[in-house]
């Protein structure tokens, strides 16, 4: 195999795992789920971007950010600002005192589109901003923290405080941001109605492909020397430093990559869900995203996706069926995963699933069976639970 391609796919095992997930997301879900449920899966998958980023920076880099919601939110807000401007054309806002500006600005007696919003008329600028704004913030935080060797718990707490600050700011500046309600009622993307079922289906696929893009980039990073350096840094930071590496710059890089992934997720969230609010920026959503990565397996890019799907599905299912039990379950699951299965679903699969699969293979006398069928249960307990979805 081409070595570069191999790096992206992560060898035979990696390619199979990817194929399984791709089948699940690109074929099985769209066929088996109705538009409404599929849109929900689409929403879960936007969180998976964050989880994938966390695998890189937390699992491999040892940097536990409790403020990934900040980047998710910034990406989402950039996209939402563009969409909101498009939804606020003078015609559909003619009942306002100042037509042509977003409705919440009108309620806040703002009579002119603020400077901050002006560039978001351009889709090109918006796409750039979706990535650039969070990455620049991550860069600033990263430079400030890692160059000064703020590590471990300190970093976690500081990122958490940043999440809080941003939430308070967004809520406080409601003329600019829509406040606690967020930016709502997003309708079209360059004239294309994003609320239709058909457009939601297209968005779902765009989202899925972007997610796979991020996973492949993640794989490429991990397969490179940089990936090995990350792990080396996590375990023996001093050694790496005294081998002549600028440890901080690697941490900053991986933190920025995680921020960029989160931001893409946020932007796709705004597109698919149709609004953005500060409730995805704060501390609680940020930690929940860590849960997705932890449950899926902090060392597994694919596991992170399963984690995001499983936890969110569980959240929807249990909060519908046993609302009382949900928090117990979520908390308990989290404690159990952290304490006993630090490598999450992916770790369980590695330690038990493969063995079991091996046994199965040996039993079946026809080893020539097409590989994907035999490995479909890669996510392990996952498909069984999701079957009740439709």
């Amino acid at each position, binding site marked *: 195999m081409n070595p570069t391609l191999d790096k992206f796919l992560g060898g035979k095992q990696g390619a199979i795992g990817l194929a399984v997930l791709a089948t699940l997301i690109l074929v099985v879900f769209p066929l088996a789920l109705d538009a409404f449920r599929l849109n929900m899966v689409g929403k879960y998958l936007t969180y998976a971007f964050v989880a994938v980023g966390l695998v890189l920076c937390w699992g491999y880099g040892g940097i536990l950010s409790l403020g990934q919601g900040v980047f998710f939110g910034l990406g989402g807000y950039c996209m939402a600002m563009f969409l909101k401007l498009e939804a606020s054309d003078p015609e559909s806002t003619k009942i306002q005192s100042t037509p042509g500006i977003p409705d919440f600005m009108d309620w806040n007696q703002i009579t002119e589109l603020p400077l901050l919003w002006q560039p978001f008329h351009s889709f090109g600028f918006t796409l750039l901003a979706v990535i650039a704004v969070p990455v620049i913030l991550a860069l600033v935080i990263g430079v400030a923290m890692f160059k000064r060797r703020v590590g471990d718990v300190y970093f976690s707490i500081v990122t958490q405080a940043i999440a809080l600050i941003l939430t308070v700011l967004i809520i406080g500046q409601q003329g600019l941001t829509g406040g606690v309600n967020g930016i709502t009622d997003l309708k079209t993307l360059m004239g294309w109605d994003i609320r239709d079922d058909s457009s939601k289906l297209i968005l779902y696929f765009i989202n899925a492909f972007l997610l796979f893009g991020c996973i492949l980039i993640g794989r490429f990073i991990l397969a490179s*020397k940089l990936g090995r*350096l990350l792990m080396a840094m996590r375990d*023996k930071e001093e050694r790496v430093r005294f081998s002549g590496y600028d440890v901080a710059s690697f941490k900053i890089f991986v933190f920025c990559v995680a921020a960029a992934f989160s931001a893409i997720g946020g932007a796709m969230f705004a597109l698919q869900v149709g609004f953005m609010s500060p409730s995805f920026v704060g501390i609680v959503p940020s930690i929940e995203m860590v849960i997705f990565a932890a449950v899926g397996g902090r060392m597994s890019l694919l596991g992170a996706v399963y984690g995001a799907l499983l936890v969110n599905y569980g959240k929807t299912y249990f909060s519908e069926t046993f609302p009382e039990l949900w928090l117990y379950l979520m908390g308990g699951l989290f404690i159990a995963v952290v304490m006993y299965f630090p490598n999450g679903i992916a770790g369980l699969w590695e330690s038990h699933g493969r063995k079991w699969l091996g046994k199965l293979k040996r039993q079946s006398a026809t080893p020539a069976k097409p590989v994907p069928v035999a490995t479909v249960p890669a996510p392990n307990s996952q498909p069984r639970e999701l079957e009740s979805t439709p």
Partner: protein
Amino acid sequence: MSQPSGFKMPKPVLAIEGLTVSFDGFKAVDDLNLYIDRNEVRVVIGPNGAGKTTVLDLICGKTKATAGSIQFENRELTKMREFDIVRAGVGRKFQNPSIYENLTVFENLEMSYPKGRTVFGALFFKRSAEVIERVEQIAAEIMLTDNLYLQADLLSHGQKQWLEIGMLLMQDPALLMLDEPVAGMSVNERAQTAELLKRISQGRSVLVIEHDMEFVKSIAHKVTVLHQGKVLAEGSMEAVQSNPKVIEVYLGH
């Protein structure tokens, strides 16, 4: 230190002058002067708490000096960042073997290869024939050729020490600093290590901290005795061993 032009006196590779560091008033290193010549093997000895490891920490930038200067090939190290010091040609082995245990010996050595040290350099680093050749060469040097594809945590304690030395050699440093390289080694391994040090000190200076006097004797060109952060004595092993102040410090209490 002006020198007449034309006549080239060998300038020390490392010149430490007036070096002081204090932790909350306690002076771990106190107005220290130390010069190491090219191709010299220098051993620093001294009782526990004499400040030996701190000196290494100061040279490689792990600890920042309170006062004084450290000149390495005419560059002032006290102002430089750790990885710049390494890139300038200073390698350091830690007291406990510090290797990447879940990587193979090959990968351990490869990590220290002085290319692809920037973020994007590392991202697009390729295992070229040149890299492989260099790794194999070093592996032979440190007697680990047979274990090249073994995971590093399966090595013996002594082999781990060698591996770390090998990782430093990958960088081809002008100054190699080793903190207790034979601690925990068998007699046989000690002898092998001494041979290794002799081989690798060709073309570079080596600064060693060691307690094992036999070992020191077998490798040292010159010995420096530290006591309470100051140089107590300096010279050949024999001269130092017969120095009454040294005897007082080692045996007096």
